């Protein structure tokens, strides 16, 4: 009896000793994390520091590659087996990655650790699920709003109240059309409301819209959707409706505005959304919340943000959300999961929010982020009000064939706005081609 007890104790002590030595000399597991936006790098570095302080057995290395190279680099790394363990994912890409078995289904882990998904803004978490599998937890969101040149606004005599309550419809453009007409200026000093306005010699356009792809996120989306139209029969449903009369009417309205000289022609704006806005050759633009910093830092005139105009069924704004996914080739899935869990936590997301670059997906963090922007004297409530409004936000459908659809629609819009195709006919043909992809 005695011998057994002592032997057990000896074995126990030996094991403990070995474990202690093991833990002390154990190499921390390195988790590679990738993101593309360098503006968010300082925020995530702070989050990583906080995480590593709480989890000394894990080391986080952050790798940043710009948007242009991010996905190609990621795919090549996946093929070669050197992909990062955790990476920032995008709704347009996750379906493909999931279909090809490159991202881990974290639903079992979410259930096991009882992760609370109700802390996020409604609807965001579900976007990352498909057929009961989950590929990421939402970490931030963005919306689209109007960006206005305050200097020109004052010159032309438009009140903030007017801008905050713009109406729009595809027939006569509502008060929105009147406002962009007023903001337009021709060579001779006439604005768009004057009968002498010369559309061929415009020095300042009321509104700038870049050429569009299938989403039209910063182009037509807010307008088209405010007519009650949606791209397909549902977020996960692949029956496209680009040939719907409401959509055709919306695009036709844009074309009319270009002809009238209130919206800049396509040739001038292919470069970027803001080519004409920052040189003050356009007074208003529609852009996303991730560009807030850009406009505030690079415009040498005061800028303000307003909600999207009220259409026939109300205000609409496209929203998008990012999440972090775990690569299936990751060798330390448990540690990767702990990092992902932390990234998706209210604490981490609020930290990111305080850097004032993105809006965190957790409801509680949104106010903190707003406050952070206010502290830098930026009023970005237009974006947050749209995000938290009733039924104002919508997501682009999460489907396959994203690249082909984008290609078909981009080329179709190019044709329409370059005058090489009539709106209804081109859209009908394009829609047929798009739906044929899903047969």
């Amino acid at each position: 009896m005695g011998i057994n007890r002592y032997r057990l104790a000896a074995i126990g002590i030996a094991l403990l000793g070995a474990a202690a030595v093991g833990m002390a000399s154990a190499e921390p597991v390195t988790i590679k994390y990738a993101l593309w936006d360098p503006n968010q790098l300082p925020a995530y570095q702070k989050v990583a520091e906080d995480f590593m302080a709480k989890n000394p057995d894990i080391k986080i290395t952050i790798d940043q590659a710009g948007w242009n190279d991010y996905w190609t680099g990621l795919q090549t790394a996946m093929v070669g087996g050197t992909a990062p363990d955790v990476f920032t994912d995008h709704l347009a890409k996750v379906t493909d990655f999931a279909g090809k078995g490159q991202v881990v289904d974290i639903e079992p882990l979410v259930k096991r650790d009882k992760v609370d998904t109700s802390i996020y803004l409604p609807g965001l978490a579900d976007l990352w699920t498909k057929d009961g599998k989950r590929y990421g937890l939402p970490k931030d969101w963005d919306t689209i709003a109007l960006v206005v040149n305050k200097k020109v606004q004052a010159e032309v005599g438009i009140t903030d109240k007017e801008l905050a309550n713009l109406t729009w419809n595809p027939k006569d453009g509502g008060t929105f059309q009147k406002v962009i007409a007023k903001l337009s200026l021709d060579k001779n000093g006439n604005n768009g409301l004057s009968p002498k306005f010369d559309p061929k010699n415009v020095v300042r356009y009321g509104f700038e819209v870049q050429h569009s792809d299938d989403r039209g996120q910063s182009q037509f989306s807010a307008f088209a959707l405010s007519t009650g139209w949606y791209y397909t029969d549902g977020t996960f449903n692949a029956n496209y409706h680009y040939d719907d009369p409401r959509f055709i009417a919306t695009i036709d309205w844009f074309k009319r505005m270009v002809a009238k000289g209130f919206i800049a022609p396509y040739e001038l704006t292919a470069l970027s959304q803001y080519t004409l806005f920052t040189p003050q050759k356009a007074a208003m633009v529609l852009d996303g919340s991730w560009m807030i910093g850009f406009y505030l830092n690079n415009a040498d005139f005061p800028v303000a943000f307003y909600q999207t105009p009220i259409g026939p069924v109300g205000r609409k704004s496209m929203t998008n959300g990012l999440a972090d996914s775990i690569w299936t080739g990751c060798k330390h899935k448990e540690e990767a999961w702990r990092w992902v869990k932390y990234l998706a936590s209210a604490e981490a997301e609020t930290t990111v929010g305080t850097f004032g670059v993105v809006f965190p997906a957790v409801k509680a963090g949104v106010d903190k982020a707003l406050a952070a922007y206010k502290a830098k004297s930026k009023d970005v409530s237009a974006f947050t009000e749209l995000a938290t409004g009733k039924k104002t936000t919508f997501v682009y459908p999460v489907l396959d064939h994203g690249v082909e659809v984008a290609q078909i629609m981009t080329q179709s819009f190019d044709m329409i706005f370059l005058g090489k195709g009539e709106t209804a006919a081109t859209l009908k043909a394009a829609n047929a081609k798009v739906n044929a992809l899903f047969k």
Partner: protein
Amino acid sequence: MQGSRARRRKLRDYASSLGFIVPSLIGFVVFFAVPLFRGLYISFTDWDLLGKAHWVAADNYRRLLADADFWNSVLVTFEYVLWNIPIQTVIALGIALVMRRLKSSSLLRGAIIVPWLLPNVVAALLALAILDPAIGVLNEGIKALGLRPLAFLTTTELAMPSIAGINTWKFMGYTALIIFTGMQGIPAEVDEAALIDGATGFTAFRKITLPLLRPVLAFVLVTSVIGSFQVYDTVAIATRGGPVNATWVINFFIYKNAFEGYKMGYATAASMLLFLLLVGIGFLQIKLMRAGESD
């Protein structure tokens, strides 16, 4: 006895010759030949980059030949080459002649090569800035002359010539330098003889200098045409294949299918077709040039 000794000597001779080739052969086989054959294999599969590759025989090729986008890419690329090569070569020839006149001042040599020193990506971005229809400096100059600004990269008519123009700008100095180097072999007496004969500068050039330059021009043309068919960076950055599909060159078609469409098998098949096209054109050029060689 004599026979075998001679044979052995010959073998040793061959072996020592091969010694010169071997290092480059290793590089060639490992980094060029093997990937090429691997690519050939992939072109007969449906590999989607991230999954398993399944054999589909000639399906990719059949679909390619029926693909309107593919043929558009081929056409558009030919359009690019036809804009780029003649203009670039003629200008390069002109520059080389100028350099000869100036007895090659180092300043000029340094100046004309600088465009080539820019990385492709930066040159394309720079072009975007300079050619912008609203705020680009080139159009500011055009407006100052009282003319209407041109939307170089955003109209279907001007986009491809503009891309060709950008690359001509980038490579004309470098090409000129190679031609100039080749001109060094032509003695100055040739120029003088032509002048005394009463021939104008141009006829002298055409009848005498040009034929002597044929070998260099051949090298330059073969390498530029091959490079031209593979244009990518400029298009990817300056026009992204647009407007509509006016600049959707074949390499852009390939990259889009490979990395965005996950159709690696399909894209590789297109690469193989491009390869065949280039081999055909390349060796045709070599044959034609060889026939006209003079010395």
